[in-house]
């Protein structure tokens, strides 16, 4: 098939000013960390973007003390409406500096600029705007007439949506009257540090938001600090279990948003073209670095061949490459470690007898890349049907009846999300009712909104983010 070639359409990176060294943000100021700094890299080019401070136990302690002081003296006693005004300011500042955030996110993470520009950054601003309005309406949160904040929240977030996950954590925490110590992911700290500048521009009182960069040890110090009242974590199920173990026996409240292995169920009456768009969005959005990715495609047997042929044709048109190019559909894998894990699971998939397919085309020479990959002939026992790949790898299974689809969809220790494609309303509602998953997308996929609670069943974690339900994670009943 002949196609029109795309001319390069790169987004300028001149809007971003990179610094050679980034500090921790504690008590309203940037400071050095006690640990050996780490380098953060553009995964699309392997260019070192800057050196980032690493917080030690002592640094985390400093941050928690600043957060405690701010909670006790400033943020806690503040009039709720005033807290809301600060959050509105932050939402507006994020909108004002949206392009800068988008470019920086794409540089540090490797995701396509269209996604950081159209999804991550606008949604992050929306989360602050939404929660700003809650700050002086908490008596309507469903937790009694005068719900109280928990205190100091220790929050650890992943690298797949760095700024957006920050917003999901920080906005509800602050709206409810808590102060925070946030640990960004070690490979994607830059937008969190730019967010710290936004806090300064908003004149947010010192200590209300503290950002301590580093790797696993820094995160552990945040989680295990004795003066933290609330722990919120988004990341792997394995680490989530460790955290649940470490807070056992303490007074710390805990919410966990962990892994997933979502089924995306296509019934034989689904409009194939729409379903294919949804399948592509479900698994290749953000390179598949999405906890709720639709990584298990369940296709009704009678339409399997048609759907797969159409899907392969569509994947053949996806543009994999320079994340800053506005025509790019699939960007870079965030880190060499993640690339190695994806390759390992793909290798296991082939060794176990599933059939791998990838589109034609070359990958850039530098950087970390993985082609969109579709496995057919997958059985429920295969590792690629059970383990979270967290990459652009789709496993295709088939079913004959709705009951079988539901049974296969629920046959996982995870329960974060699921998709249903069908034209029949009663079937959609019945299947949605039976799926053990926290978010069900019917005839759509990977939609997010601050008003809409998000979070998992089973080993995908507990607690919700977004909506009135999400506020429960940061308040206690009066």
């Amino acid at each position: 098939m002949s196609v029109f070639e795309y001319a390069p359409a790169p987004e300028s990176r001149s809007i971003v000013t990179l610094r050679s060294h980034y500090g921790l943000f504690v008590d309203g100021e940037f400071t050095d960390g006690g640990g050996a700094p780490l380098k953060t890299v553009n995964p699309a080019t392997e260019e070192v973007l800057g050196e980032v401070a690493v917080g030690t136990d002592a640094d985390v302690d400093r941050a928690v003390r600043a957060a405690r002081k701010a909670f006790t003296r400033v943020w806690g006693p503040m009039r709720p409406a005033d807290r809301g005004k600060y959050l509105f300011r932050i939402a507006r500042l994020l909108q004002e500096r949206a392009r800068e955030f988008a470019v920086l996110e794409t540089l540090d993470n490797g995701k396509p600029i269209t996604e950081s520009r159209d999804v991550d950054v606008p949604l992050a601003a929306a989360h602050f705007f939404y929660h700003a309005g809650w700050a002086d309406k908490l008596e309507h949160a469903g937790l009694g007439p005068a719900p109280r904040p928990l205190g100091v929240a220790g929050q650890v977030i992943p690298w797949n949506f760095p700024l957006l996950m920050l917003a999901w954590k920080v906005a509800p925490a602050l709206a409810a009257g808590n102060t925070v110590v946030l640990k960004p992911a070690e490979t994607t700290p830059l937008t969190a540090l730019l967010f710290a500048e936004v806090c300064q521009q908003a004149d947010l009182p010192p200590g209300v938001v503290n950002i301590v960069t580093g790797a696993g040890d820094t995160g552990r110090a945040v989680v295990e600090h004795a003066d933290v009242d609330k722990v919120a974590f988004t990341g792997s199920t394995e680490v989530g279990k460790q955290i649940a173990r470490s807070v056992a026996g303490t007074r710390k409240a805990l919410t966990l948003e962990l892994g997933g292995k979502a089924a995306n169920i296509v019934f034989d009456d689904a409009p194939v073209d729409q379903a294919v768009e949804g399948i592509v969005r479900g698994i290749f959005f953000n390179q598949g670095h999405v906890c709720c990715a639709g990584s298990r495609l369940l296709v009704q047997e009678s339409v399997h061949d048609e759907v797969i042929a159409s899907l392969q044709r569509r994947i053949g048109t996806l543009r994999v490459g320079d994340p800053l190019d506005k025509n790019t559909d699939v960007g870079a894998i965030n880190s060499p470690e993640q690339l190695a894990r994806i390759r390992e699971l793909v290798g296991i998939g082939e060794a176990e007898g599933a059939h791998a397919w990838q589109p034609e085309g070359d990958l850039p020479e530098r950087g970390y890349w993985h082609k969109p990959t579709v496995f057919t002939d997958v059985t429920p026992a295969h590792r690629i049907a059970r383990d979270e790949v967290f990459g652009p790898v789709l496993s295709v299974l088939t079913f004959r009846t709705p009951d079988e689809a539901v049974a296969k969809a629920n046959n996982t220790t995870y329960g974060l999300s699921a998709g249903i494609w069908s034209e029949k309303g009663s079937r959609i509602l019945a299947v949605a009712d039976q799926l053990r998953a926290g978010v069900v997308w019917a005839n759509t996929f990977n939609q997010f909104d601050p008003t809409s609670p998000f979070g998992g069943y089973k080993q995908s974690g507990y607690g919700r983010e977004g909506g009135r339900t999400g506020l429960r994670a940061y308040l206690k009943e009066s």
Partner: protein
Amino acid sequence: MSERIEVRKTYKLYVGGKFPRSESGRTYSVADGRGHFVANAAKASRKDARDAVVAARAAFAGWSGATAYNRGQVLYRVAEVMEGRAAQFAEEVAAGEGLSAAKARAAVDAAVDRWVWYAGWTDKLAAVLGGTNPVAGPYFDFSVPEPTGVVAVLAPQRSSLLGLVSALAPVLATGCTAVVVSSYQRPLPAITLSEVLATSDVPGGVANLLTGDAAEIGPWLAEHADVDGIDLTGAGTAAMELERSAAGTLKRVLRAPADEPDWTGDPGLSRMTPFLETKTVWHPMGV
């Protein structure tokens, strides 16, 4: 005239709607508040706990899938049958907890009323905890609370009926099914409650009551991969270790209070929300 010799009861477990002895063959001696022998209660084993989990899992689809109205009526029926047994409950509570007859009767009344209160919640939870979400796009988006699954309840050790009901009824009201380990020293009201449940249209397996030692059975329930949530109220000093075990499968944990609470207070939603999930469903709008 000679005095009638009373017919005494054999006290057994309640699993899957039936009353088995412990598979282990073990019993333990239960005494009243003054130390007099009352009964040999079955001492549930690890295997009994696992059997109870199997029964609870098997019952989950039917119970969670029943209409909220139906669940409400079944739970209300439990209260009706409890009321008819009030004298028996009061006697057991008085003997076990060392209460006066009047105080024991007040505890029984409160337990029946608590059950009625929870029966009325089944068809309100969705409206109070769920709703539509005004997302910024052409989608219909709604959230509903759903039961998390099988919940293990380590019942309060002191309050043998009101505490037990206050822990069990909310779990059943959400649509979860339950495996309960009763108060060790005061198991009789739990056994009588089993007989109430068995005659109240509660499907077998929805509530399973084990008499025995929470310190012995608790760890197996906390680890069990087919248990979705655990209420540690009666766990005592083992609570922290059980919470750590529960982390292995990321169970929903209702932590034990520092001291057993006054069960007469209004519990609000605090004993239901830990065992409820929120499911959010999106669908595009368009013609």
